[in-house]
């Protein structure tokens, strides 16, 4: 039998190599194929107004993804032992609940409501940082637990009811247009640029990435991993606080249970983004691209009349196909 292996060796090596390359580009190819199919199947899919809708729908996911990406960059991208923050969506919903409750039910001034919301969000970040850096919990467990606690607090604040918000600022975020582009999309773009600049163009960002890339290397260079990991949770919580306004804008108020879908979309988008990126690491632009593509697919499937219950199935299958093809291509190549 070993003789057979010998005679087959040359073609197998070639097949393995090209299989590796093929599997590597598979994630993006699947998406391109799906989008192509959708634009053929549905006449009005490939229009500017649809594009605008896709982007607007994606805003909250994009912002929480920015937060999660920073945590992953600082903690390394092993999902279980590395950096992950599953509490960003719950944090965002907490901030949204505070704002909705304050301005709609207590008639607080918007600025004060926003400050309260941000304080609440950052408090969650501090708890996460404490649990991970000082207590020594794995980020997965710590943020899963805070997420549950935060959702419980949200229930107390809102009594699990929907709260309508018709404040002018929120309506403006939803409907405002500036130079032909939705205000929300513009603000999100500016936020993305800000996060990108912070992570890639400042000393802080470089050190953060160094910690995530190799904790030993960072320590040898005099960079304190603990400091950057705890700060990354604060940055993520900050993103959660920012996303709150857009959650309210998208839903014209607070709706209980928003966090679940946001969590699923965030994880999906971030790890899809990692599979797209040539180096297979979580990146800001990858996560944003992932979020937009997921939003496009959701809208696309809706526009061709796919049963809404199928979307979870499709998303789940996508994440598996993408992650499996990424890990298999790594295995084949090595």
């Amino acid at each position, binding site marked *: 039998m070993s003789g057979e292996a010998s005679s087959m060796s040359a073609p197998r090596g070639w097949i393995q190599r090209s299989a590796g390359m093929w599997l590597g580009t598979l994630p993006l190819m699947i998406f391109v194929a799906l989008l192509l199919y959708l634009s053929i199947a549905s006449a009005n899919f490939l229009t500017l107004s649809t594009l605008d809708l896709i982007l607007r729908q994606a805003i909250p996911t994009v912002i929480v993804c920015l937060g999660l990406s920073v945590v992953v960059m600082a903690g390394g991208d092993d999902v*279980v032992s590395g950096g992950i923050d599953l509490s960003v969506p719950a944090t965002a919903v907490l901030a949204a609940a505070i704002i909705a409750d304050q301005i709609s039910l207590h008639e607080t001034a918007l600025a004060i409501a926003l400050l309260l919301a941000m304080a609440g969000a950052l408090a969650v970040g501090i708890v996460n940082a404490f649990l991970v850096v000082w207590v020594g919990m794995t980020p997965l467990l710590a943020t899963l637990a805070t997420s549950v606690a*935060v959702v*419980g607090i949200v*229930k*107390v604040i809102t009594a699990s009811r929907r709260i309508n918000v018709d404040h002018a600022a929120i309506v403006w975020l939803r409907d405002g247009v500036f130079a032909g582009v939705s205000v929300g999309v513009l603000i999100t773009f500016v936020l993305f640029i800000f996060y990108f600049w912070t992570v890639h163009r400042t000393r802080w960002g470089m050190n953060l990435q160094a910690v995530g890339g190799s904790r030993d290397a960072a320590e040898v260079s005099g960079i304190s991993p603990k400091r950057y990991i705890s700060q990354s949770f604060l940055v993520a919580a900050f993103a959660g606080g920012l996303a709150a306004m857009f959650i309210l804008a998208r839903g014209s108020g607070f709706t209980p249970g928003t966090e679940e879908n946001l969590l699923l979309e965030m994880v999906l988008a971030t790890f899809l983004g990692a599979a797209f990126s040539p180096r297979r690491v979580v990146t800001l632009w990858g996560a944003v691209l992932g979020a937009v593509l997921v939003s496009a697919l959701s809208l696309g499937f809706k526009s061709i009349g796919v049963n809404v219950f*199928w979307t979870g199935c499709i998303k789940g299958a996508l994440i598996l196909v993408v992650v499996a093809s990424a890990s298999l291509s790594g295995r084949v190549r090595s």
Partner: protein
Amino acid sequence: MSATDTPTDIKSTLRGTFMRYGFLIIIALFFAFFTLYTGSFLNPSNLVNIVEGSSILLILALGMTLIVALGGIDLSVGIAFDMGAAFAIVAMKEYDIVWYLAVLIGIGGGGLVGLLNAFLVVKLSVSPFLATLGTFFIGSSIQRIFTNGGGPISHRRVDQEYRNLAVGDIYGIPTEIVIAAVVLVIYFIVLERSVFGKRIHAIGLQKKAALISGIKVNRYVAVCFILAAATCAIGGIIGSANLRMFTPLAGFSYLLDAIAAVFIGASIHPHGRPNVPGTLIGVLFLGMVANGLNLMGLDFNTKDALSGLILVGALAIAVGQKKLR
């Protein structure tokens, strides 16, 4: 050096005591608080309630213990729970299958979830977290599709024997508790006493060293995922027997409690390993808190928030205690 410094010695002894028994002290404090605050907490019937109310969680947490001992995590225990209920109820309702066969079908249905996880983890090298997350998405979606958005499938005329799995008793002990106890004993023997368990712990501690020592790592990983899912299906079957219906997505609510129980249990272990007795203690703690908060007559939302905060605090103490020891 310690002879001159008695005050700090006492302090460090106290600290040491807390570090070692920290979590048990927390349990005792909660127990005392609920006893004093609510009149009925210490009633024998209420204590039985706690144990009975913890049975399903215990079964799921044991499945989770197996996977965490193996070095992974299973986010799809809820799906296996749901599949157990769905397969059993549908088998009886649509195909008139006798109850004990329906139970086996339910366990098999849960096992399918484990089979998918095993395939993803072993054959496709997806990390357990992402694999079981994907399974969770797909499993949730499938339930919505088949129930048209999540409507329950009820089967009022279910065999009494099936119903008794949840509401009956054996020599006065609720069947639910008996089933959970049997699963507990089996898991204890498998994980803590058998060679199978020793190999699982070896894989969980250092996978490559286990591989090099000649353990069939892939086979063990696959078997454990299937076994854990089948176990969770037993929980689902009991749940469906209680309500005489299959409630889609009901299993999700157990996920975090199961994870928490396993990690609380691991923190009590001298070497910080997930273990069966520890998981039992974790489950009983969570059951006690849920029961106590209920007796306090808090409203639903406050209770949720409080139990979430207690969970974070308990985990922090449990893990922190392990780290400081």
